[in-house]
C-alpha cells in the first residue's frame, strides 16, 4: 500500500531538449520554462476546451458572483456547492473538491489538467480565505461572509484569479519537469542535493508568479465588465474563453521573459 506511479517524458526532440536543459547547470529557469512551454504545446492542444478546467473557472467566477449577492451561501447552494453559513475554511475547501469531483463523475471524464486546475482553485481559495480570516478556524458566519464578500470586488477577484492561474501554470510546469528533475540529483549532476531541487522549484514558482502579474488587472476588469453586461451573471461560454485566454497570456509572458538578452 502507498504505491506511487511516476511517468516519463516522451523521447521527442522538444522533450529531449527539456531534459538536456534540466541536466545543464548553466541553463536558467526562464530558458527551461520556455523549452517546457514549447514541448508541452502538444499536450495543451490535447486538452483545448477541457470541460474540467472550464468547470473550475466557472466555479471560481460563481464564488465572486455570489459575493455580490445578499445571501452568498444561498447562491452557492443553488449552484450546487454544499456549504452552510457556519463553514470553516477546510469545509469550504472540501466542498469545492467534492463539487468538482461530482461534476467529473457526471462528465465521465477527468484529465490531469482538470485535476491540476481543481487543486489550484482549492489552494487559491484557501489561501485567499486564510489571508482574510487570519487564524480563525471556526469563524463566525459574519466573518466568513465578510471574507467571501471581498471576492466580489474586481480587484479582489483579480488577485484570486491571478493566484489561481499562477498555480495552474506552475503546477503544469512542474507536472512535466518533475519527470526529469528528480533524476538529476546527486554529486556531479545539476542538483547535488534535494535542497537544490527545492530551490529550483522555488525559482520556477517565482517565475510563474511574476509572469502571472499580467493577468491580475485583466481578470478584475473582465469580471467587472462581464458581470455588468450580464446583469449580475456571466455566461458560461464567456468564462471558458476567459480562462483559456488567461492561461495563454501567462504562457506568452513566460515565453517573453525567456527572450535572450538583446543588449
Amino acid at each position, binding site marked *: 500500500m502507498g504505491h506511487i506511479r511516476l511517468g516519463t517524458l516522451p523521447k521527442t526532440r522538444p522533450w529531449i531538449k527539456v531534459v538536456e536543459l534540466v541536466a545543464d547547470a548553466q541553463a536558467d529557469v526562464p530558458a527551461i520554462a520556455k523549452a517546457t512551454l514549447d514541448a508541452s504545446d502538444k499536450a495543451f492542444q490535447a486538452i483545448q476546451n477541457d470541460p474540467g478546467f472550464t468547470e473550475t473557472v466557472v466555479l471560481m467566477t460563481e464564488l465572486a458572483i455570489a459575493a455580490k449577492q445578499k445571501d452568498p451561501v444561498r447562491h452557492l447552494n443553488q449552484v450546487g456547492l454544499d456549504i452552510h453559513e457556519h463553514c470553516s475554511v477546510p469545509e469550504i475547501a472540501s466542498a469545492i473538491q467534492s463539487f468538482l469531483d461530482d461534476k467529473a463523475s457526471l462528465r465521465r*471524464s477527468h484529465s490531469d489538467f482538470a485535476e491540476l486546475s481543481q487543486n489550484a482553485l482549492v489552494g487559491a481559495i484557501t489561501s485567499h480565505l486564510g489571508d482574510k480570516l487570519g487564524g480563525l478556524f471556526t469563524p463566525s458566519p459574519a466573518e466568513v461572509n465578510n471574507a467571501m464578500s471581498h471576492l466580489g470586488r474586481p480587484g479582489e477577484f483579480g488577485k484570486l484569479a491571478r493566484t489561481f492561474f499562477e498555480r495552474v501554470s506552475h503546477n503544469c510546469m512542474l507536472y*512535466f519537469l518533475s519527470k526529469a528533475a528528480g533524476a538529476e540529483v546527486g554529486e556531479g549532476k545539476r542538483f547535488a542535493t*534535494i535542497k537544490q531541487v527545492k530551490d529550483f522549484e522555488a525559482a520556477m514558482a517565482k517565475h510563474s508568479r511574476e509572469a502571472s502579474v499580467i493577468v491580475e*488587472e485583466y481578470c478584475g476588469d473582465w469580471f467587472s465588465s462581464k458581470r455588468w453586461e450580464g446583469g449580475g451573471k456571466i455566461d458560461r461560454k464567456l468564462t471558458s474563453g476567459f480562462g483559456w485566454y488567461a492561461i495563454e497570456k501567462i504562457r506568452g509572458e513566460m515565453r517573453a*521573459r525567456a527572450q535572450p538578452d538583446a*543588449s
Partner: protein
Amino acid sequence: MPPERVILCGGLSAPAKSPDAAPIRLNLTDGPKDTRVNLKISDFNRRLPRSVPVLQNDLVEIAAYVYSADQAIVRTGQDTDTFGGKWRQVIHLHIPVRRPDFWSRPEVTKALSDVLGFLADHIFEFTFKKAANPAEFHDYLDFTDSNAGAGNAPIDQVAMFSGGLDSLAGAIEELVTLRNRVAFVTHISTPKNSAFIRQLWTDLQKLSPSNKAVQIAVLANKAKAMGKEHTQRTRSFLFAALGSTVAQMLKLNSLRFYENGVVSINLPVCAQVVGGRATRTTHPRVLAGFSKLFSLICEADFQVVNPFIFETKADVIRRIVRAGAGHLIASSVSCGHTWTRTTEHSQCGVCSQCIDRRLAMLSADAWELDRAARYENNVFINSSPERDDRILLAAYLNRALAMKTITSPTELISRYPEISRAIPYIPGQSQAQVAQRLLDLHRKHGAEVESALAAAVSRHAYELVNDQAAPDCLIRIALENRILASAETASQASPPAPPSYFWRRGNVWEIRFKGGTSFPLQRHDKGCRYLAHLLSHPGATFTGQSVQDICDRAGEVGHIALSAIQDPTETDLHVSKSIDSDALDAADDKKRENYKKALSDLDAEIAKASREHRHGDLAALKTERGELIDGIDRDFNKFGKSRKTSNLAKSRNDAVRINVRRTIDEIRKHDAALADHLSSKKNLRVGAQNSYQPPNTVAWVFTDPTAERVAVGTE
C-alpha cells in the same frame, strides 16, 4: 474522451454496441484458462460458519472481477503529450450476480462506482445480469490447513492483516493490548507471500497463547496471459469485501484496516503525481465509501475504520516495541516491489514503502530490530538503480522535510489541496479539528524523517568518511542539504531588493520607491518608458521630441535595455532636428494616431472610473480629456489637417507630458509617496523641457539583480 474498456465476466456476451472491439473476458469458476480468475479462501485454524449471505457472495465475486480487471488494464506512464489522457479509462463491467435487482438499484450502483472511481481513478460502470448457474461460496473455500487452535469463542473484531509493519502493529494492538478475539483477513496476491505471512502469523500467535486469533487467507490472482498493472489499486476493495463477508458471517458490523495516516492519505510527493497516481488503498474517503456500500448490503450500519489515521510510521513501530513484540518486526515485509523478492532479500530497499520503513525504524530508535541484510539495496549509501526510484527518493525526502515548515492548517490545504479530499471523511471531530490534527501528523512525520537522517549519518559515518557512499545515495543528497545549507544560502540567496527600482520584466513594469511596497504596472508602457529614461538621467534635460525618439526606438526593438541605447553625452538640452516635409507628414499621421489612441484610452479609463464610482479620479480624467481635446484643436483643424507643422514639437512635448502624468496618476493608486515625489516640479519637469533633478538623490536601480536575465526590458 477517455479510452473505454469492456470486461465480460462469467461468460456474459458483449453488448450489441460495444465501445471496445477487444473486450477482456474473466471467469471465476470455469472458462478458458487464459480468462481465469483464481479465488481461494482458507480458514487456517478454525472453520467459519458455512452460510454466507447471498449479497455477500455476490460482493466477493464482484470484488474479484474488479480486482482482476484493474490488474489486466495496464496503465502507461507515456501519456505526457496527452496530459495523462490515457490514465483514466471508462471500464464497463458486465457481471452475473444472484441478485441483479439489488445491484442495479441506483444508490447501490452509485455507491459502488463512486468508491471504486476514487480508489482506482477510473470511471466504473456496471451492468448486472442474473447468474445462470452461480457458484456456491464453498467452491472458493480451501481447507488444506489444520483447522485447529482457535477454539470456538465468539469473535469481537475483524481486521485486515497484510504482513507489513502497520498491520502487524494493529494485530498486536488487538491481541495483546486490547485483548480482543479477532479474525484476521489476509490477502495473498502471490504464493510467494504465503510463507513469510505464515511465519509471521506463527510468531504472532506465540505472543498471546491464551488469545488465539482466527486467520483467513485469501489467494486471488488472474491468468498470467492478461496484462499486469502492478500497483493493484483495487486490492483493498477485494480485501475489504472479504473482510466484510467474514464480519457478516460472524454477525459483526465493523472492520478495521491498520495503516499509518501519512501513507493512508498518501499526499502527492511531486507535481506529476496527480489523482490516483498516489494510491488510495486505505484513504479515508475510500473507507467511508466501503462503509456506505457495505451498509447498503447488510441493511445496517457497517463501519470500516482505520484506528491509526493520526499516527506516523514511527508511532506504529513504537507501539510494537512497547508491546514487547519488537522481535517480530524483522519478519514483517513492507516492500511494494513484490516481484523482486527473494528468500535472501525480502525487501527491495528502494521503493517508497521500504524508504518509509527504514527511516521510521531509525526515527523510532528501533533500527537494530530490522535486519539490514534483508534489503537488497541499502538506500542510505547506495545508488538507486532505476530512474523512477531516484526521482521518488528525492521527492519523498523533499515532501517530508517541507512539512516541517508548514505552520497552519490553512497553509497545509493551500499547499496540498489533495488533503481536502480526506478531511471530511475522518469522523468524530469537526473538519477544522481534523485539519489541525493532520497538520500535526505531517509535521511530526517531517520531524521524524529529519531525526532519522541524523541517525543515518551516525550509522554510516564510516562509509561517508571513507568515500564509500554513492554520490546520489539518500544520505548524501539529503545530508548536504543540512551541512551545506548555510554555504548554499550564502551563495544562492537572492540579494535583497533595492529600495528604489523602476524596471521592466516581460511586459510588466515593476516599481518600488524608498523601501516601500513594490507594485506592477502593465498599461502605461509609454509613460513608464519616458519616466524610466528621465529617472535614469538625473540632471539631464531633454526635449519631449528627444525623449520620444529615444524611448520609441527602445519600443520598436522591444526589449533593448534603456541603458543600452542611451547616449552618454546627452547631458545638454536636446533640440529638435530639422524635419523635411515627408517626415512631417509621417509625423502628422503618427501624431493623429497617438491622439486617437490617447483619447480612446482616456475614454475607457473614464468609463471604468464611472462604473466604479471613483469620483475623484473621474474629475481628474475629465480634466485631462479636456486638455487632450485642446491639444487636438491646437494641432488639427476641423478637417483633420495639421494646423502648423511647427506645432509638431509642441505636440510631442504634450504627448510626453500627458503620458507621464497619466502614469503618475496610476502610480498614485499604488504608492502615493512616489506619485507626490514625481508630481513635484522641483523633482520632475515634463513638457517642453523634461528633466529629473531631485534635491536629494534617489538611488534608482533599473536592472533586477535577482532576475535570471538582465531585467530592464531585456528579457
